[in-house]
């Protein structure tokens, strides 16, 4: 597994709700990324966003990892929930909240801040700590 893919995997596992989008949580550069975030906001789920635009390799490695070809991609508790269409559909039917409860317990209901995060940094094994 490539190092980048491993960092993506770690980030997905670290964040209870994470959306890989084009842009940031404040400014999406794609209607579908915006739709996915609006669906999460609609149920009051705080989420972390990762911007895939700065490096095309992020999208490539993410899709290889998730077996999902498009952006956005939303994960809850480490599991791919879907892209914009599915997240919107689940939000409308109430299943998104059920999925959040199932994967995260009710802790997500306590709220939290939306934010855009960087991928996990891997520790450089060759770094010499003084």
């Amino acid at each position, binding site marked *: 597994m490539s190092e980048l893919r491993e960092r993506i995997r770690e980030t997905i596992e670290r964040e209870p709700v994470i959306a890989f989008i084009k842009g940031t949580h404040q400014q999406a550069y794609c209607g579908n990324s915006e739709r996915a975030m609006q669906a999460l906001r609609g149920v009051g789920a705080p989420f972390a966003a990762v911007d895939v635009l700065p490096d095309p390799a992020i999208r490539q490695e993410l899709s290889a990892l998730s077996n999902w070809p*498009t952006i956005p991609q939303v994960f809850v508790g480490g599991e791919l929930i879907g892209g914009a269409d*599915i997240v919107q*559909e689940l939000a409308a039917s109430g299943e998104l909240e059920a999925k959040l409860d199932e994967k995260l317990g009710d802790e997500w209901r306590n709220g939290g801040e939306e934010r855009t995060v960087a991928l996990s940094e891997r520790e450089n094994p060759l770094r010499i700590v003084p």
Partner: protein
Amino acid sequence: MTGPIENLLRQAFPDARELAVLDRTGGGDHFQVTVVSPRFNGLSLVEQHRLVYAALEGPMADGTIHELRITTRGET
């Protein structure tokens, strides 16, 4: 230009009860596809959409499809 996409979907889902392709913007590269098929029964939405993406892998890869919106349903 919805014909080629519809053909690919018909090949992938020959038993589809409902199959529709809509050129969402009129620009010929933003599509909404709807597929209702017994093949989706018992599959999660993620698995259902993966089957649609797989059927349209060619036009997705070569840029014919710039954006794809998907609605799928199993048959009850």
